[in-house]
Structure formats: structure tokens, C-alpha cells
């Protein structure tokens, strides 16, 4: 707060000042030290100043409620939350990352709606905010699938999509990607919901082995190709459907990392107290 410490509001600060008979400068310095100590305790270098565009993913809110024993609270309609028992049991810190949209290939963005091309879409997640002392145990890429209206009219074969998630190892001339498969799943487009893909090997390579992070690539294949369904089931890009901005911010791909900073116990699911 400029020259003043921000921890204690002005009113409280004046009261403390009066009680202690200290000079304002001494008081502010003490409060600044106090705030810095508290922030260090929380593992922060400075006081966070969230921007207006910051979005808190519903998945982390649900995870928090499960953690604090408030999971009984009803979520949004249609929400299906599955507690990541295995990942959370080895971690005390969960971080959420959205991809850097500025790095998206414009061409790739267009195919999702129009061309029906099978080229994978590339997503780059900046994980540099993970502190060096935090050891990742796992990471998942979460993708939202939206039910295609009238899906019930299609045969089981026509409803099938395969989602492949790759780590990008190299980008060669012409934008072609050299990749390795991390996870794959066969889904049907008659339901909406989140799919979680294990991308731990890539996240560990980027953070532990300091291998350059070239991102992940996602490929959605409609097994019984029809122009009407191709590229319309999995929410990969902003332009895929004309929905409000808030909708995209909550439904866009999300990378979630599970790590431990060596302090304290892992996350455990609590019952309501």
C-alpha cells in the first residue's frame, strides 16, 4: 500500500500507534516485517495482487470443499466431482494452470470448427511458478466434453470419439509436431463432463529434469467420421462454440499439478466437523 504496511487497516494502525507511543515510521516498518513473515509462512515472496481476469476453476473449489469437509454442499447443477484420492494422497499443494492462448496456432484454432482435419491442437502451460522445492508427484490434464444434441439418434459406433493426449517433444519446420503419447481414451458424445488425462511424465520432465516445456497436444478423432460431429464434442478452443466468455473460462482445458513442498502432511479428505 505504497508507504504503508497493508496488513492492518488504517483505523487499527492508528489505535496500535496510540497504544504503543511509537512513531508512524516505526509502526509501519514493524507491520511490514510482520506481514512479510506471515507471507513467508504461506510460501509467498510478496503479497499477491490478483488481476481482474483471474479465474478460480470450479474443480479447485470442489477440491477445497472436499478437503475442508464441506463436500456435502450442493455443487452447480450437473456437476460431477470425483475426488482425486490417489493424486491428493501424496501431495500438500495443488496448482491449476490454464494454457497460454497467445501461443495457440491460429490455423489449428480454425480447423476445430470447420475443416475436420485431424491435426492435434497444441497447448502450452507455463509451470514456472512452481517453486523449485516443490516435488511434483502427478499432473492431470482436464478436458471438458459437451454432449452433442440429438446424440441419442446416432448409433453407438457413430457416437464414439477417441481423445489422445501427447507431450510435444519437438516442433519441426512447418509447425509439424513430434510427439509421444501420454494417455488416450475412448468416449461417447452423448454425455457432458470432464475427462482427466494423466500427463505426469511430461510435467515431471519439465519440472524435475528441466526439459524444455513445448506443451501438450490433444487430438480428438471421431471414429465414424461425419462432418456434423467432428470437432464439436471436446471443448478445446474459444472459437469452437459461441458461448459467453465466463463459460469458456470455466470449461477451457485445465492442467492440475499435485506436489509436496516437504512441509507437513498430504491433503486428506476430511469429514464435516
Amino acid at each position: 500500500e505504497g508507504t504503508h504496511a497493508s496488513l492492518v487497516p488504517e483505523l487499527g494502525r492508528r489505535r496500535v500507534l496510540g497504544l504503543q507511543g511509537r512513531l508512524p515510521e516505526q509502526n509501519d516498518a514493524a507491520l511490514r516485517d510482520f506481514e512479510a513473515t506471515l507471507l513467508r509462512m504461506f510460501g509467498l515472496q510478496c503479497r499477491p495482487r490478483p488481476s481482474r481476469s483471474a479465474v478460480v476453476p470450479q474443480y479447485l473449489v470442489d477440491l477445497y470443499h472436499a478437503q475442508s469437509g464441506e463436500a456435502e454442499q450442493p455443487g452447480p447443477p450437473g456437476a460431477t466431482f470425483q475426488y482425486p484420492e490417489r493424486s491428493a494422497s501424496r501431495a500438500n499443494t495443488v496448482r491449476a494452470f490454464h494454457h497460454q492462448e497467445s501461443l495457440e496456432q491460429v490455423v489449428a484454432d480454425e480447423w476445430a470448427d470447420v475443416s475436420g482435419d485431424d491435426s492435434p491442437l497444441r497447448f502450452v502451460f507455463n509451470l514456472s511458478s512452481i517453486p523449485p522445492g516443490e516435488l511434483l508427484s502427478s499432473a492431470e490434464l482436464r478436458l471438458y466434453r459437451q454432449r452433442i444434441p440429438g446424440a441419442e439418434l446416432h448409433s453407438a459406433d457413430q457416437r464414439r470419439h477417441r481423445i489422445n493426449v501427447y507431450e510435444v517433444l519437438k516442433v519441426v519446420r512447418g509447425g509439424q509436431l513430434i510427439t509421444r503419447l501420454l494417455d488416450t481414451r475412448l468416449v461417447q458424445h452423448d454425455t457432458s463432463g470432464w475427462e482427466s488425462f494423466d500427463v505426469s511424465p511430461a510435467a515431471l520432465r519439465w519440472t524435475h529434469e528441466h526439459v524444455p516445456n513445448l506443451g501438450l497436444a490433444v487430438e480428438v478423432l471421431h471414429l465414424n467420421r461425419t462432418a456434423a460431429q467432428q470437432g464439436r464434442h471436446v471443448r478445446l478452443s474459444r472459437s469452437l462454440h459461441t458461448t459467453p466468455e465466463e463459460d469458456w473460462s470455466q470449461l477451457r482445458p485445465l492442467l492440475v499439478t499435485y506436489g509436496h513442498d516437504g512441509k507437513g502432511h498430504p491433503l486428506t479428505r476430511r469429514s464435516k466437523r
Partner: protein
Amino acid sequence: SAKPRGRKKNRHCRRHPLYVDFSDVGWNDWIVAPPGYHAFYCQGECPFPLADHLNSTNHAIVQTLVNSVNSSVPKACCVPTELSAISMLYLDEHDKVVLKNYQEMVVEGCGCR
């Protein structure tokens, strides 16, 4: 006539309520949840002889015993003997959302140590 007997205040070491409200210090802009939490604190006397419920150590019993005959040796201190963790959901310095478990944030039990 006998004086009306008020409820005798228990001054022995025990846990007291203490609610930490993040909005009071203006931290609710980056801490998404919880809005605050019950931290509690320990306060009270550690009298001679130490009762079982005061969770004392052998050392605290000896120190209290010595204090009863030599007041220059202080009494045992009323301190947290059991603490628990809380989870916090917040936005960090990079605008990233973090859910973290912080150990030893809540006093669960107090004792004389």
C-alpha cells in the same frame, strides 16, 4: 446471608476461541477460501499439582514441583500440545490458483509444558 455464588472462573490452562478473519487484514482479495478460520489459543495457569487433563510432561511436573518451593523457578507454560492443519485456496503472485495444506494452524489441545 450467604453471598450469591457466581460461577467460579476456571483459570487453569485451556483452549480459548480465536477467530482469524482474513477480511480484517484485507487479505480476502487473494485468499479465496476460507474467509477466516478458528485458530484458538492456549491460556491459563499451570497450578501445583498438575492435573492429568493438563497433558503435562514429566519435566513440567518436576518444574511445577520445584516452583512450589522455589518461586524463582517459573511454572510450566500453557502451550498448544496438539495442532491441526487447514487447507487454503488462494491466488498466488502469478495469478495462479493454489490449494495448499498448511500444517499446525489450529490448536486442538492445550497443556502445561
